[in-house]
């Protein structure tokens, strides 16, 4: 308020910086859009303007029998949705126990959880491989090479990833609320389902969305776990366009990226209010 006199130059400086950052943010997005309508299959062919606009990269994704693109999208969506919903629910259960219930070793369990969480689980890949191979031997549908097996591995990390975050939010809900409910004779599970679940809606939305995006982006485990072309996720499938399998086919990659990104970005922007609130709330709790 006291800077009114300086406002004009400062405001110009702000706009320049902001516009510079916006151009920086949009440049790759523009490039990928440009490449997706480029007929040569290269990444924007070293030019910043489109010469001709063609849609063959898009049609190729849906017509080429060797590219089961829709299958990849489906695999990713199924995997990411299930991991997000089940993972957040499991994390929510755990965080409720950590936030509200008294039990022996609570602090140490929380410490241990944080510690296990920082072990990147794909470095245990060889171990995971051995375990899932044995499971495959008995139950072929949930072992190595299957979406369900990969889901189980993802879910193994969900408690560590979500419990801490959600606990932070649950801690901010006043104790008086559940104490009053307890006096009314409510059990722990009633308090959880009837009081906490509705109150945590914003943070549930944020964590579910972030878990969904995180799973959608996961590359390492999926690329080693899912060998068959049909079983791949979008991330692994699209990488193969610019990796070795198909040669560097940037056009198809760009088109696939645009198709895969549109629903995610739409979802993200439409839930922006929740995300900004959730992320900002997380920042002031430390």
């Amino acid at each position, binding site marked *: 308020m006291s800077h009114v006199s300086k406002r004009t130059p400062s405001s110009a400086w702000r706009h320049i910086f902001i516009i510079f950052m916006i151009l920086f943010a949009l440049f790759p997005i523009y490039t990928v859009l440009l490449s997706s309508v480029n007929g040569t299959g290269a990444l924007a062919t070293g030019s910043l303007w489109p010469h001709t606009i063609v849609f063959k990269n898009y049609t190729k994704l849906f017509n080429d029998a060797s590219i089961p693109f829709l299958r990849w999208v489906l695999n990713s969506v199924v995997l990411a949705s299930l991991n997000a919903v089940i993972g957040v629910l499991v994390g929510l259960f755990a965080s409720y126990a950590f936030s509200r219930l008294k039990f022996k070793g609570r602090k140490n369990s929380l410490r241990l959880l944080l510690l296990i969480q920082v072990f990147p689980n*794909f470095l245990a890949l060889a171990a995971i491989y051995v375990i899932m191979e044995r499971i495959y031997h008995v139950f072929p549908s949930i072992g190595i090479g299957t979406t369900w097996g990969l889901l189980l591995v993802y879910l193994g990390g969900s408690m560590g990833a979500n419990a801490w975050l959600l606990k932070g939010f649950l801690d901010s809900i006043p104790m008086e609320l559940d104490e009053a409910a307890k006096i009314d004779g409510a059990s722990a599970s009633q308090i959880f389902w009837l009081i906490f679940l509705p109150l945590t809606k914003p943070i549930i939305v944020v964590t579910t969305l972030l878990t969904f995006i995180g799973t959608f982006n996961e590359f390492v485990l999926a690329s080693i776990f899912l060998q068959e072309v049909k079983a791949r996720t979008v991330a692994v499938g699209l990488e193969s366009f610019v990796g070795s399998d198909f040669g560097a086919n940037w056009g198809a990659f760009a088109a696939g990226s645009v198709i895969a990104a549109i629903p995610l970005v739409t979802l993200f922007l439409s839930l922006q209010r929740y995300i900004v609130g959730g992320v900002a709330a997380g920042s002031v709790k430390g």
Partner: protein
Amino acid sequence: MHKLFGGKIGLAIKVLILLSVTGLFSFMAYLALLKSEWIIAGVLIAIVLAANYIYLNPRPVAGKFLLPGVILLILFMVVPVIYTTYMSGFIYKAGNIITKEEAIHQIMTNTGLQPDANNTTYDMVLGTVGSQYTVLLTDQTTHQVYEGINGVATKMSPGSYHLNADGIADSVPGFKAYNDAQLANADQQITDTKESLGDNKYIIAQDANTAGLFIQTLIYDAKTNTLHNPITGATYIDGGKGYFVNRDNRTEQILPGWRQPTWFSNYTSIFTNAKLRNPFIRVFIWTFAFAFLTVIIMFGFGLVLAIALDKKIKFRNFYRALLILPYAMPSFMSILIWAGMLNRDYGSVNALLGHHIDWLNQVWLARGAVLLVNLWLGFPYFYLISTGALQALPGDLEEAAAIDGASGSQIFWRIKLPLVLQILSPMLIASFAFNFNNFNLIYLLTHGGPTNVLAGETAGGTDLLITYAYKTAFATNDQNYGLASAISVVVFIIVGAISMWSLRRSKVLEDMR
């Protein structure tokens, strides 16, 4: 609503879920038992017992909420971590994957079994005598006939067998040849057909119609734990490094090897073996530098942006929507796009600059590129949390400081920045830990490169510890799981220590109710 969860219906739902889980898992345990997978069956039964105990018992309330997460965590997180740590104590790499028993078995049935010098081949007819699996073998050169039963081949005298039109023995008294249906199911029997001729010679089936003569050149003696070659007379002893080696010439190894316990040698080799130590130290330093620098840069840009967008500025919401787009884009995609954009020949960055720079193939440029791309990916998040932190500052702070005579820049550097840093320190530390292990960024953008393969380098200029470990385990010819596990454990200890330290600093647990 209350009735639904508290009353009989709630109980019914609970019992129903518990019953179906019990039924399903018991059935799965039964299937596992049928295949003699004791561990899997045991785990499933343990889950059923734990679930029933915890959910039927009113007392362990916390257990009811923790059980599903704990089971998943133990099976797919804790067990792999423990197994990885265990593996780091072994020589465990390509050529040393199997156990010693399996290795001996393979040596006996593969390596130590050589075809004889004349490549003697037999025509083979499968069948049974009584109920006993039997093969009739006719030497293609000498036409001598053998009957193979129960692992022993016996010479047959002429006249005791019947020859078919091709001169192959196809019947002896009591012998019943396999029909087509039996032949179709005889794969395992054919694989197992190994009939001894004495003198370490064996007739071994090659396919359904032929067999060959093999000589056992390596024989395992369990008492002395040695291999013996009856032809050359050489003796091979357990060299202690996962191989049988010639007693008189220790460089001569018998393949395959096995995984050999070595305690800490994988760890010590990181620090003593110059070929491992030099890249490790370089990667170690770069990992710290990268994680530190990238957090500072992202935070710097995020904070300045938050300040720039702080107050009444036109189009604020519109700007914000555009600025958080990088956060909304799937990151694996963005990284790959950047990899293409930074390409020397067709990348749009060079097109924009009008230069011909090979961004990803020179060490320092590649490191700069990694920081630049991570800035793109991360600044929106830091912008958001910085905005949150700035809004959490007391509103009259600035005015109070101004009244005390502080200038604008003093207010920022001396008052606002320290407060914002304090508020955001948990996020900054978490981001440091995340970027310390930022596998996707490095692997998809540079593959850890540039790597001077000609100079025999295994680590590239932008490799982080985690990509280095991954390459060690999965991308080199060596596939050194033991060493990779050791590096993983080292990474784990470093990041774990940082996390514990920051946890203590932030006093989250001490403040816990």
